């Protein structure tokens, strides 16, 4: 077969999915959502699960709902639905913009938010966006539901805090204040389209000054990471270009260069440079949304 043969199961509800996970405990099991990361690895022989559990029919995991204090994105929400959601663009601009930059139209029509987050691909666009937006991952397991802050969720390359018997059911994005702006700036690989570097920035401002900032990067380390030196350099400072440039210059300060991603397309040294450039672009993009002076044309 091409790919290797596997058993196919379809879950119609979260409970059914959990029961199937339990039933196949011990076997190599993969959950099939959009399939855009999974199926290519199966076709190329890199993955050959014994069992695929198709979760696409679970109604409870679909769609975007306004919860009052924030937005809830069902894990099976397609990228295209996020990109088309005025609410996500309004409340979690960096997340919407990151989603907008994933793949192409076909990928965005099929790929899911939950699948992306659960996969924790270091070059994916959503982990940094979720970190910058202060999002929470909600997982359901045999013992019920638990909430995992984005901060604690991404643990490494394709490694997360999710247990094998758990299902990622939704993403929660907190409601932001009027002065909150965000942006995502991405350097895509010319071959794969994945992020060589992608930076998400969320600034809470009072119009003239930055009250607090959350900045995170994809593609640089083995999983999405916060760029705290940048955040620290911004907090309490005036919202202007000089502040942003100085802060962005610290983007690589806390990143361990030995552990930094390095491949044919960009060495770790160059990624350390790119993360500064793209931090600046993300911050300038956010600042522009706050009505700050338009950045210079070269950016």
């Amino acid at each position: 077969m091409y790919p290797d043969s596997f058993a196919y199961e379809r879950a119609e509800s979260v409970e059914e999915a959990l029961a199937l996970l339990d039933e196949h405990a011990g076997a190599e099991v993969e959950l099939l959502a959009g399939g855009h990361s999974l199926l290519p690895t199966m076709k190329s022989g890199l993955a050959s699960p014994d069992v695929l559990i198709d979760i696409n029919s679970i109604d409870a995991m679909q769609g975007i709902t306004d919860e009052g204090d924030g937005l809830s994105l069902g894990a099976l929400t397609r990228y295209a639905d996020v990109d088309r959601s005025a609410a996500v663009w309004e409340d979690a601009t960096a997340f919407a913009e990151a989603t907008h930059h994933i793949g192409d139209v076909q990928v965005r029509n099929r790929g899911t938010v939950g699948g992306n987050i659960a996969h924790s691909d270091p070059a994916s666009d959503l982990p940094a966006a979720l970190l910058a937006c202060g999002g929470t991952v909600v997982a359901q397991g045999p013992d019920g539901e638990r909430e995992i802050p984005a901060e604690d969720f991404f643990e490494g390359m394709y490694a997360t805090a999710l247990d094998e018997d758990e299902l990622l059911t939704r993403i929660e994005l907190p409601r932001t204040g009027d002065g909150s702006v965000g942006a995502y700036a991405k350097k895509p690989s010319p071959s794969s389209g994945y992020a060589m570097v992608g930076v998400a920035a969320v600034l809470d401002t009072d119009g003239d000054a930055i009250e607090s900032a959350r900045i995170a990067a994809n593609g640089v380390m083995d999983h999405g990471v916060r760029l705290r030196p940048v955040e620290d350099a911004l907090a309490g400072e005036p919202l202007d270009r000089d502040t942003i440039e100085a802060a962005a210059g610290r983007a690589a300060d806390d990143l361990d260069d030995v552990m930094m991603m390095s491949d044919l397309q960009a060495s770790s040294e160059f990624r350390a440079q790119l993360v500064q450039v793209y931090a600046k672009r993300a911050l300038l993009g956010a600042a522009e949304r706050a009505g700050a002076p338009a950045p210079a044309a070269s950016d």
Partner: protein
Amino acid sequence: MSIETKESEEIDIEGILGSAVERREDPALITGEADYTDDIQRPNMAHMAVLRSQYGHAAVEGIDTSGAEAMDGVLGVFTAADLDVPGEVPVGWLLPSLKTPPHPLLAEDRVRYQGDGVAIVVAEERYIARDALDAIEVDYERLDAVVDPREAVQADAPTLHDSLAEGPAEDPPEAEGESEESGANVAFDWEIGDGDATDEAFAEAAHTVEVDLENQRLIPNAMEPRATVAEYKPGTEEVDVHMTSQNPHLHRLLMSGVLGVPEHKLHINAPEVGGGFGSKIHHYPDEALATWAAMELERPVKWQATRTETYLTDAHGRDHVTHAELAMDSAGTITGMRVKTYAGMGAYLSTFAPSVPTYLYGTLLSGQYDVPAIHCNVVGAFTNGAPVDAYRGAGRPEALYVVERLITLGAREIGMDPAAFRRQNFVPSDDFPHETPVAVVYDSGDYEPALDKALEMVDYDALRERQEELREEGRYLGIGFSSYIEACGLAPSELAGQLGAQAGLWESGLVRVHPSGSVTAFCGTSGHGQGHETTYAQIVSDELGIPYEDIEIVEGDTDEIPQGMGTYGSRSAAVGGSALSTSASKVVEKARRIAAHQLEAAPADIEFEAGEFSVAGAPERSMAIQEVAQASYLAHDIPEDMEPGLEETSFYDPENFVFPFGTHVAVVEVDPESGEIDFERYVAVDDVGNQINPKIVEGQIHGGIAQGVGQALYEGAEYDDNGTLLTGSMQDYAVPKAEHIPEMEIDNTVTPSPHNPLGVKGVGEAGTIAAPQAVVNAVTDALQPFGVDHIDMPITEEKVWRAVNDAGGS
């Protein structure tokens, strides 16, 4: 800017040649109606898969096929030991002192590149065949590998072919002590030009410049991977092969020798072929293996390459490491050029591989310039990579990259504007035909108008002013020129033979007018996306005065077409088109005699215009060519000494190459901080001689530039030190996407070729040849404030950033 197409019905027959007629092949192609090789199904068809070495270099100590043979649905597993074939993968171009190592269809005791075939499985289903590959156990003993052509020819490099290690080549090159390389991996050591005169030019030069550059290894990426469907008919001993071929007749000739099937029993048909860029010219092992398997098992056998196999085994392109120098006098006039190149051949010699870095490379080093003395030495090296052969441009992009990089550096050294420096050194328009010091004679050319037009299009003076202004603001605009030349329609056959080609380079064309007056025309070229069905019909319609819609074009089938040399090297219009034009004019001459006979006039008094024969001075006495066709087949009343029928065949052997040319200008902005390169303009002025169909010319230029920009900025095959391909899929090898390609502004000049009946030159490779150096020259021009003179392709963001940093910083 883009040219509007027209439907043929909107065009008068007098205007059909040169009009932008809509491509007639597209409706079938874009609706899925067209049949590609993998669409072909046969009753009882089996499927072949090839087990390939995962190592770049290893000894094969043993192969255990028993596990695979035991699998349900497996019909046979075969290794080199099972193949009882008389031939090996052939080399179709020989050079003096060329070493041609054995190249069996399957590796015998050694694999020499990742992808080298080790065994085949034939099974009832495609998936079973692929699964069975995993059940074959090969005992490999890993060997040291070498992937860099310059390292490969050093004496201490791992030897690929032990049979070549004993003693020097039989016919050593004449260059005395020119090369220090003595390793067993030297495939050839070739030179062209006058070494002494060139050395003298450099000794006397007021200025010299030099550059070390690489023309990186590229992977072709035709949209359709290679495929074969082979059938054997035991009753008649006929073998029918459908395959992805750019030249079915050549494949028939070569495969006939490899498998020992007489040529008249071997039928090769290229159905629709989804691109080739050269990769489907060559004779690979796989198509012959599928054919052998069909004969062995007496069942139809299909083999369809995966994209992975395409990356591993389609002949790659380029792979040059070069040191080049230019000599000038004090006034900035070029006096000499010296080039030393190490060319990677990969693990074996592919079909036309030896010609690519030699006769298709060294002969183009004069470019558009009057260079009194040139010397070029090329050392071909066996390396643990996929074989390298012709890839869109084939030798000529490598040459023009060297020339145009040197010219740009020369202008900088002299302190002249690069456009003015080019103009000063162009071959003057009154010096054609122009003989270069590297063995070719340019048929026609007029280089200044193309440069002038390009300068006007970019508004050059204003652009230079803006460049200065932007530099004041810390922004880096760059303007890059590429004044290129191309040589297409390699010819004549006699010359090709003297240069080592094991084939003639003519083309055949058969024009058959049917009794009803419609036409089928057959040509030995084999289109795979070029639009020959449209352009050839335009040529025949124009010559015969028969409506375009009444003409059908047939290519790609050895049973239908007299003979053929195929489609590559931008040869189809110049050689194939000329063959059809010549045949059509012979048809007109025969028809003229029939018309004269029926109209009771002397043939000399018969005029022919727009499909109508008439008696001079008595236009009412006339016959349409369709009526003549009918008369020719009725044969009731034709000249006594004439045979019935109305069809003619030509074997057209051109008297020379054709030499298209042009100037491309790239305008880019480079951000030293991120290394990013943004195109501001891309202007292309090409002179491809007369144009049969300007829309198709435009499409070829677009595609060529896209591929050239791909080489300049994105593409590059990378092997690690073990010979493992690191860029083995589109995930890692950046084939440019639409968003990576600049908007192209295209114009042309027209300087017809004087020696073919159509005055055409060829356009298939022009953009690919022109674009890389236009982009590289633009990027290095932008980085002049940092003192960056050269960056090797592909110019990634990281290379820009490093170049700026190494030069002292952003």
